[in-house]
């Protein structure tokens, strides 16, 4: 039991960026734009967040990482605009455009690191986001210890984002319109919805969330941004989105599970019935499970119907 109590905060640390980025993917795909560039956007967000934290740390040590988070988010929005312009205005293949962004992120972040810091990575920051405890709530037996003691603030941000996503996508007119554009854009357009605008919103929100996820990841799990800082987390986010059936609650569950699986890889040697499994088995779990999930969803309509399709106003 105690080992699980040890593992949970670490799982939350891993899960928070996965879920944030997956929620970003949710907005984009619900609006009808496939976004495999989550990984690249996370890299850009992570770089921007780390760079700003390094630069601001001497001036305002406490606030620097928080500003870093915000700047990571803004960088994500800017970067995602490239995807939006190509796939919405220029009717580019969304997978190709996403691939371009992923390649670009690797080159651009390392290039800029060399321009700003004269090395292939950002300088190290002395402190990223700090763990916190919430007075009062931490005294709740068991739960207080798990959720409110020595926990990264990104966990709470992530929970708020899940709630917010659910509310916005399923309880507001905006969300209804967004989903309409992802299901049947022509029908949405015939009801007077501006499909282009809604899809721009979807992609930009995905940029904000993935950028935030990237900076949150670097500022909690790393000491600097390097080209391997994100190491496939954007694709695990994509996996969570699919495994979670494009719903915020599903994403929450899937992301938590994948975060836990990652943590297990470190603790498995202490758990007798898992000790024989190699670390790599836990690493591949999200990917293999996603393929299995896709097979199980086969033939059912799960994802947004029009995601990935090029929207042509003339087509009916």
């Amino acid at each position, binding site marked *: 039991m105690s080992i699980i109590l040890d593992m949970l905060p670490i799982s939350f640390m891993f899960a928070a960026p996965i879920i944030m980025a997956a929620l970003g993917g949710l907005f984009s795909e619900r609006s009808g734009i496939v976004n495999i560039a989550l990984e690249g956007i996370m890299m850009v967000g992570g770089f921007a967040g780390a760079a700003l934290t390094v630069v601001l740390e001497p001036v305002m040590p406490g606030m620097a990482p928080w500003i870093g988070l915000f700047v990571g988010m803004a960088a994500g929005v800017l970067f995602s605009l490239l995807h939006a312009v190509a796939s919405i205005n220029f009717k580019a293949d969304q997978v190709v455009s996403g691939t*371009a962004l992923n*390649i670009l992120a690797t080159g651009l972040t390392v290039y800029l690191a060399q321009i700003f810091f004269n090395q292939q990575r950002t300088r190290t920051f002395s402190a990223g986001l700090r763990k916190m405890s919430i007075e009062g709530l931490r005294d709740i037996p068991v739960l207080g210890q798990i959720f409110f003691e020595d926990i990264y603030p990104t966990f709470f941000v992530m929970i708020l984002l899940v709630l917010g996503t659910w509310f916005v996508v399923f309880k507001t007119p905006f969300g209804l319109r967004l989903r309409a554009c992802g299901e049947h854009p022509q029908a949405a357009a015939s009801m007077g919805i501006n499909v282009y605008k809604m899809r721009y919103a979807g992609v930009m929100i995905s940029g904000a969330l993935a950028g935030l996820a990237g900076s949150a990841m670097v500022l909690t799990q790393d000491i600097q941004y390097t080209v*391997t800082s994100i190491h496939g987390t954007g694709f695990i986010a994509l996996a969570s989105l699919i495994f979670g059936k494009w719903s915020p609650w599903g994403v929450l569950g899937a992301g938590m599970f994948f975060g836990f699986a990652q943590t297990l890889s470190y603790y498995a040697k202490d758990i007798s019935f898992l000790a024989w499994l*190699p670390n790599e088995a836990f690493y591949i779990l999200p990917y293999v499970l996603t393929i299995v999930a896709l*097979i199980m969803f086969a033939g059912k309509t799960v994802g947004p119907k029009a995601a990935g399709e090029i929207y042509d106003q003339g087509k009916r």
Partner: protein
Amino acid sequence: MAERKKKTGVESLPGDDTARNAIMSDAGAGDHPVAAEQLPVAKKTGKFLVPLVAVGLGFVLGAIIIVITGKNPFIMFRAMIQGVTGLNLASGSFNPRYIGEFILQSMPIILTGLSVGFAFRTGLFNIGAEGQLMVGALASTVVALAVKAPAVIHVPLVLLAGAGAGALWGAIPGWLKARFNVHEVVVTIMLNYTALHINNWAILNVLGSADRVKTAEFPVTALLKDPWLSEITNGSRLNWGIIPVILSVVVYWFVVEKTSFGYGLRAVGFNKEGARYAGLKVERNVVMSMVIAGAFAGLAGAIITTGTFNFGRVLPAAEGYGFDGIAVALVGMNQAPGILLAGLLFGMLKAAGTLMQSAGIPKEIGGIIQASIVYFVAMKLGIERIIDLLRGRKADKLAALASGDTGEVGV
């Protein structure tokens, strides 16, 4: 016919009658509407113009970025010339090692380009060349270490193992697509990371690694390395991998353009339901396409492992050969000669990287240019518009001139 049109796919799994059906399926396809080569590619001239313009724009953008970041873009162009020809324009010296390294850099990405391109021709997006390459590298490592044989047997075995493993890895998304209609993009992405971790696990735990970075060195009989090739290029890592690469380009061209099998694959890529109606086994073609795509990528893995290196490697992350392949296939328009040229183009960017780095420009500019080119190719609608606009202006001018002439005559 109704039954054929049903999306079951169960009866069309790859069977042993593959070859016969491939030939049969094409019988009479020539007069069928789906077979006619009227693919929806833009006007003939615009077709080749788009990637050319995209490449040009990519380099212009790269140069602009270099200027903005306070460096000299001519260093980049000089490095590219030196990377390809071995000529140092600044000092006038010549070093053939650069030519060898340039070809070495191009070899694997031509193969992953063929991999991505082959799948594209059947309407499939193979983002999984990276993973197929990694399992190919792993399989060739196993054969290189485990088999004792003279080089004439050992080398082909190593290459076959790589291609075979890549083919199997490619078969997974192909089969899932054919059987369950699961989108190959997501499956291949997931399989890339699966392959990465399987590779690392196998090298660390099965093959054994003293330094936890690489396996023991291969016996020389397994290697594509050759002292002579290295010598004529002044000590570069150029190796006999160049032979399978050239053969692959030829095979690709032949299969896609000259065989009924390739014809069937293209028909599926052009119009799936039309191909089904014409009697092609769509599901089988989808699987076969991914198998062959995987084989090309797996071969690249074998060539890297036994040509560039002489040991199996633990990889901290994917190396990007798969993404390179996507860029190569897109710019090469999925045609064998195009892929060869595009592979050399991006190979040049990689080869020039080290030269640029030592001249003070971060070598990542190569990746930025590559990404921009892919991005511009993706925006081909925008590029076509620009081309049309320029053409339109020209046409307008001509029209104006013509009308002006007649006008004058009239007056």
